């Protein structure tokens, strides 16, 4: 039976893989649909999921990362059978055929349902990804303390 106080879910997303992002976003939207407060904390490779399709990086290494990790959520490749982009193409085709929402659509749905997205300041600093490179809907740039506080107040927490 639902109580008056909303349940709370916190999800840390470290992976930038298509399949793992899909799992994270499906759980987030399912929780939001079930009247729960959902906080998603994107760190390291997961930053891709909240990035715009822009070039990043100032130093040589930063630019290298910008090149390797370039693109937005739609450029995420599956963790298996990647084949230099072939896997992504194949999975997108198969998912479309089965009417599964794309990652970008799932993320938009999550935002519309009130899921709050946060970026990890440390990863962004290390990878030379500025705030402007993230989508406008990102609520704030935060750190480990923020995650721990939210996780400790949550009914369940996931690390993906």
């Amino acid at each position, binding site marked *: *039976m*639902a109580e008056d106080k909303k*349940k709370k879910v916190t999800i840390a997303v470290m992976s930038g893989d298509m399949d793992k992002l899909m799992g994270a976003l*499906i759980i987030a*939207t*399912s929780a939001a*649909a*079930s*009247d*729960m407060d959902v906080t998603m904390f994107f760190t390291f490779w997961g930053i891709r999921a909240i990035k715009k399709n822009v070039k990043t990086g100032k130093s040589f290494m930063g630019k290298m990362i910008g090149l390797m990790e370039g693109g937005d959520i739609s450029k995420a490749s599956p963790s298996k059978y990647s084949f230099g982009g072939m896997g992504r193409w194949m999975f997108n085709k198969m998912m479309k055929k*089965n*009417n*599964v*929402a794309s990652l970008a659509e799932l993320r938009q*749905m999550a935002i519309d*349902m009130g899921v709050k997205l946060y970026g990890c300041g440390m990863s962004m600093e290390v990878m030379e990804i500025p705030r402007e490179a993230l989508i406008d809907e990102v609520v704030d740039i935060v750190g480990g303390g923020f995650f721990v506080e939210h996780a400790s107040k949550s009914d369940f927490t996931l690390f993906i």
Partner: protein
Amino acid sequence: MTEEIKFDLELDLKGLLCPLPMVKVSQNIKNIAVGGIIKAVATDPGSLADIPSWASSTGNEVIKTEREGKDIIFYVKRVK
């Protein structure tokens, strides 16, 4: 012959996969009054578990579930 349930809104969720059937029900239930009923027709076998779970999480009620071939028909009552 089973008794027909009167509903206020019908949703065609055929072909949609997780999490869409449950998301659509959750979005549309706000458009009917408390006490109203949604008839939702889905084909995703996962929705058979998902929609009752969603109802239990949100305090709403699945009053009846029927199967007609591939179609799974839910009657969902807005309780709160």
